[in-house]
């Protein structure tokens, strides 16, 4: 920062004249360890009193080299890595990866598998939106709004445990379907969840939706217009809050989403309140999809018939020579994959989560690139907060739902 007579040059090259500045210019370090940055990323803010002038971002504090790691691991061992992208909704990442590999293998999974996948992905979307909206509440000072949704998330964790045994980083499903069908305990717990969750959700929603303090804090905080959002490559609830109804589930339906009837909520201003409301409405729409999928769950096998990628039954492995060979090859990661490249995208909790997979026929991918929505829309954060107060910056950051695992990969 240089001072020459009447002009001040800021760190990003912007030049201001001294008359426009009210107080003193200060540099504040917002992160990487800060209670309000939910994740590890740093913003260096230049403020004039409370008003933010510029912001410089540093990311990469949790860079774990997923893309290089994926070039080392066989296809079924990459699922645990995809878990850790957006870890608040890990089933969506897992199932998106399985769909990418199935696209490469040109395998069509049975209808029952597709409906089961839809139920699980919508549960994951509910879980992700519950966290994001509760944290918006916490950042405006309502700490109670943290405890209600986390109690409901425990029920979703119990549902995941019934399917795959893990709570958060689920490593769920197999290439070609699932390792076992839904158990009777899962059916009972899902029915229980569908009965009790809506009422609990409305109770929590009522605390924030028309709350005077919450609305005053969040309305007008961190707005972005639809044109700017599109230029930055926004997708997901952040783009829908700005008014554009782009949803991968509707434009390029995958896994039987075209069978279901749901609406896409769209906001008006693109500010924090709109992002909050869009996510709340998406939770209601997800519940609607789960009801439809569960009531119409078709009968059939719970996995596709691809013996080269799907582990055979243990009794076949002990009695049948072919099954033994397949079992050995799958566990050792030596299954034959065709050569080719494919791009598949799913609607993740934050937007279009894409997988660009190039295979050269070897046991591990030649190149796997993740299109991470957080990384792409976090670029717009300085523009969203320029001219706002520091408290608006805090609330905006929690409302755009930046998950550090997805930001840095």
């Amino acid at each position, binding site marked *: 920062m240089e001072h020459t007579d009447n002009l001040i040059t800021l760190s990003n090259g912007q030049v201001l004249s001294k008359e426009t500045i009210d107080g003193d210019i200060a540099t504040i370090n917002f992160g990487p360890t800060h209670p309000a940055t939910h994740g590890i990323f740093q913003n260096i803010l230049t403020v004039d009193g409370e008003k933010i002038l510029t912001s410089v971002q540093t990311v990469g504090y*949790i860079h774990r080299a997923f893309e290089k790691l994926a070039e080392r691991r066989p296809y079924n061992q990459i699922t645990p890595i995809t878990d850790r992208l957006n870890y608040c909704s890990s089933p969506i990442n897992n199932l998106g990866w399985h769909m990418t590999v199935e696209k490469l293998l040109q395998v069509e999974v049975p209808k029952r598998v597709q409906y089961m996948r839809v139920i699980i992905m919508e549960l994951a979307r509910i879980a992700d939106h519950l966290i994001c909206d509760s944290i918006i509440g916490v950042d405006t000072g309502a700490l109670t709004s943290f405890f209600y949704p*986390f*109690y409901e998330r425990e029920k979703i964790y119990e549902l995941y445990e019934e399917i795959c045994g893990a709570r*958060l980083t689920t490593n769920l499903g197999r290439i070609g379907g699932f390792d076992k069908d839904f158990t009777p305990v899962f059916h009972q717990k899902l029915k229980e969840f569908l009965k009790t969750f809506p009422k609990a959700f409305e109770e929590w929603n009522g605390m924030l939706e028309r709350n005077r303090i919450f609305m005053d804090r969040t309305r007008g905080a961190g707005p972005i217009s639809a044109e700017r959002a599109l230029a930055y490559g926004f997708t997901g609830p952040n783009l829908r809050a700005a008014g554009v109804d782009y949803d991968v589930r509707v434009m390029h339906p995958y896994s039987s989403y075209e069978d279901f009837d749901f609406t896409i909520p769209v906001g008006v201003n693109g500010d924090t309140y709109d992002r909050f409301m869009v996510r709340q409405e998406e939770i209601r729409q997800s519940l609607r999809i789960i009801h439809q999928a569960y009531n119409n769950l078709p009968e059939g096998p719970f996995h596709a018939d691809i013996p080269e990628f799907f582990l055979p039954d243990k009794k076949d492995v002990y009695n049948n020579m072919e099954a033994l060979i397949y079992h050995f090859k799958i566990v050792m990661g030596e299954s034959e994959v065709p050569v080719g490249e494919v791009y598949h995208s799913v609607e993740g909790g934050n937007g279009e989560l894409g997988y660009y997979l190039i295979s050269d026929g070897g046991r591990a991918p030649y190149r796997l690139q993740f299109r991470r929505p957080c990384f792409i829309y976090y670029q717009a954060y300085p523009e969203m907060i320029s001219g706002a107060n520091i408290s608006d910056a805090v609330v905006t950051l929690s409302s755009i739902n930046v998950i550090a695992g997805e930001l840095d990969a």
Partner: protein
Amino acid sequence: MGKIEDLEVINGEGYQLTSLDKAVALARSNSVWPLPFATSCCGIEFMATMGSTYDLSRFGMERMSFTPRQTDLLIVAGTISKKLAPVLQKVYEQMAEPKWVLSVGACASSGGIFDTYSVLQGIDRIIPVDVYVPGCPPRPEQIIDGVINIHKLVKHEPMRRRYSEEYRHLLDTYEIEITNSEHDK
């Protein structure tokens, strides 16, 4: 580590006799205030532990402080990359004595599944750790178990440990400076 003993008191008419170490340790162990240094997935499990199902505040950890000056326990939950390592060391140095470190998750304990060029293979390469909680991510019950083990350590720690030669030597191996007035003598 010495023998584990219960808090011995000698009761009298209107007074109790015990050693200062034990009384102070009892008070400290039941009101440990943590600093959740949550970076990734283990951070979400830690948040679930703080929630109402696996309530962590019943163990005395009511106030999560994010400023190092006011905390006793540094809970590192999640992957620490080499870029973040200096930040973590600085946060540890800013904490006031006595301080303990709980390493939650496989990534913080040893690098976890990420044996890559950018991930620090365990935080014990830069700061001294007291209790490790393995898991990826560990269940809330495991995190609570880790916290209870920290409480056991706190309860049996002699008051002069932080001024001992052994402790100073330990911090020297990590190249962490001690800014304690007793050591300047």
